[in-house]
């Protein structure tokens, strides 16, 4: 219960988004720019951010009447300038063969110039505009689906939403159009959002609509995690540049990938949605707090900071799918010895060793002093330490000497000298997992760590040597 309340402090809710982030950081002027697609297009282009090419615009009934339809290329998109949530957009794939004024829409149906004219009339009347006031319609080039996403996207073009705050990319998701969303990449309309690991640009977890967690592309067996987003670094930098140019302090940047031209900036969003947190299975609020007040000098620097701070979800992903925790080569552990004696220490995690060894002194503190003393009394010189003799040695010692808590004898062959060591049973807790282990006792006083954990006790861990 308390944990849930604490965890919920990581989540950005609507109230905090509006009051703490949008209100002070997205000033009215910048918001108006974001809502005006033609103007933001011009602004971004000037700032060196690639945008889909503007073909023509129609801002009055008169220009609509006199519009020369023949200037249009074979494929294009019609958009309302101040549209909201992808409404009022028509995507034209090409001209119908042998005709001049009949086009084919993205759903395969045809549309005539007359019907397009009516649609544009509606746009001009403000039917799709944010404020229901008269609007402008414009034609822009149609982006082509990049190869990477061909099998993932239903009809439309997937795009990548990146939240930029204080010039740092804090969270991102890949938005895939689905059948339910009618080819639109909008989550509210049933699109799929896939979380992205900021460091690697690789997808992690996914959500469909507002909160349904999914693993596969709807209706297929295509896994949504592990998709490598092409041009990842370039996209982060584009998004940061767009923030600098637009003046939106808290920006939802939409970037798409064109088959021919690579990353293209689609849209500025002054009120980015919150579902990105579900797609990433992570909270935005804590991330925003972490980049608050950082002095970021350049877009390249901002991208590097974002990647460093917010990468690593892949690791948790591995943990949750394999059920194993990822540990480093040195880990903080707690050892539980005899009579529940507990000692905290640092352990060397070594997949090159077979079994686990602990230092004599450590073993004494864990309550095994009597084992060591008794074992020292045994005259070991009589035994010839060879692999062939191993079984015999164990049997002989264990049957001749009854030492309490001595559960086994280890015969270790090492280049530095082979030895016979006492084995006792302990438990240790590493990365929240408690492992019961048989460990041999040896003098490690000249070594840095007083315990080394070998393969035998590492079955429930994965070792990341870079950690």
């Amino acid at each position, binding site marked *: 219960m308390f*944990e*849930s309340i*604490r*965890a*919920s402090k*990581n*989540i950005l*809710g*609507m*109230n*905090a988004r509006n*009051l*703490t982030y949008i209100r002070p950081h997205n000033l009215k002027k910048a918001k108006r720019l974001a809502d005006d697609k033609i103007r933001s297009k011009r602004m971004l282009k000037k700032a060196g951010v690639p945008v889909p090419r503007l073909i023509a615009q129609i801002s009055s009934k008169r220009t609509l009447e006199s519009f020369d339809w023949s200037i249009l290329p074979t494929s294009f998109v019609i958009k309302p300038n101040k549209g*909201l*949530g992808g*409404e009022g957009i028509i995507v034209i794939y090409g001209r119908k063969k042998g005709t001049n004024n009949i086009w084919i829409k993205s759903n395969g149906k045809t549309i005539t110039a007359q019907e397009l004219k*009516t649609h544009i*009339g*509606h746009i001009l*009347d*403000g*039917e*799709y505009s944010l404020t*229901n006031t008269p609007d402008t319609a414009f034609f822009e080039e149609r982006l082509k689906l990049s190869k990477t996403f061909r099998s993932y996207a239903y009809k439309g073009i997937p795009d990548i939403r990146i939240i930029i705050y204080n010039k740092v990319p804090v969270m991102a998701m890949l938005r895939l159009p689905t059948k339910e969303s009618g080819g639109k990449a909008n989550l*509210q*309309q049933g699109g799929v959002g896939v979380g992205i690991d900021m460091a690697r640009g690789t997808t992690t977890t996914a959500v469909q609509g*507002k*909160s349904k*967690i999914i693993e596969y592309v709807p209706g297929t067996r295509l896994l949504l995690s592990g998709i490598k987003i092409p041009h990842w670094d370039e996209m982060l930098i584009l998004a940061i540049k767009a923030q600098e140019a637009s003046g939106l302090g808290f920006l939802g940047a939409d970037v798409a990938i064109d088959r021919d031209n690579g990353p293209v900036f689609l849209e500025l969003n002054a009120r980015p949605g*919150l579902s990105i*947190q*579900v797609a990433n*299975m*992570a*909270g935005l609020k804590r991330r925003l707090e972490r980049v608050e007040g950082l002095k970021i000098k350049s877009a390249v620097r901002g991208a590097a900071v974002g990647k460093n701070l917010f990468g690593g979800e892949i690791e948790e992903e591995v943990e949750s799918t394999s059920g194993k925790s990822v540990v480093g080569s040195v880990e903080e552990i707690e050892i539980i010895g005899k009579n529940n004696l507990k000692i905290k220490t640092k352990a060397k995690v070594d997949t090159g060793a077979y079994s686990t060894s602990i230092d004599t002194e450590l073993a004494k503190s864990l309550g095994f002093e009597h084992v060591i003393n008794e074992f020292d009394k045994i005259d070991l010189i009589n035994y010839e330490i060879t692999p062939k003799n191993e079984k015999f040695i164990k049997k002989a010692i264990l049957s001749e000497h009854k030492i309490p808590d001595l559960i086994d004898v280890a015969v270790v062959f090492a280049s530095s000298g082979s030895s016979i060591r006492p084995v006792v049973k302990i438990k240790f807790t590493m990365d929240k997992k408690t492992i019961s282990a048989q460990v041999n006792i040896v003098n490690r006083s000249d070594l840095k760590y007083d315990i080394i954990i070998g393969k035998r006790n590492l079955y429930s861990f994965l070792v990341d040597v870079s950690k």
Partner: protein
Amino acid sequence: MNVTDFSPIIQFLLEQQLNLDTITLLLLFPIVITIVVVLRQVIGIQAFGIYTPSFITIAFVFIAQDSFWDIKYAIAIYVIVLFVGMGMRFVLKKLRLLYLPRVAINLTVVSFSVLFTLAVAGYFDRTGFASTSIFPILIIIMLVEKFVTVQIEKGNRTAIILAIETLIIALIGYTILSPTTAIGRYMISLVLVHPLTVLLVIPFNIFIGKWTGLRFNEYLRFHDVINKIK
């Protein structure tokens, strides 16, 4: 309650020929709005903005004054207005008309259906409901434009959900403020005896306006994420 129990402020207003209903509703209105604010900002019921649910609440209080269950007529008008409005949009879509004339036709049909409903209600049930003032009904009709706008922008599903949420808010507001319920009567006597207590909604709203916690529905929405990070 006697006039002599009222606050001197109210008595003064009555001496200036103000209607008691008007005074009561004007004093209740800040409370209505605040209820809507709490339901939206803290609970997370979205509804159609803040005005629509508030006005609908007032309309409900106004329509069902005599007995609590008269609210069924108010709900009936609400539902009919929305259904006709929604249905007409589909019919009119085929005509490919410009937006404003289309809304005009839509509202014309809505007006006639309300007229028809009132006639039917009057015929079967002579409680005086059929002679309800036009204003609460007009307020409900105003909902159509709001509804159609949302329908265009966010789709039918969202529009219907928001319409249901608006109805829920209005019913909660109605229960708290209608003279037909005990709590409503208490609220009414409170505002008439101590009208200035209504001003407490201002500090309360300042508090809500600065509050950045998660809304109740966000705990549900982000339930999986919260469990994952804890």
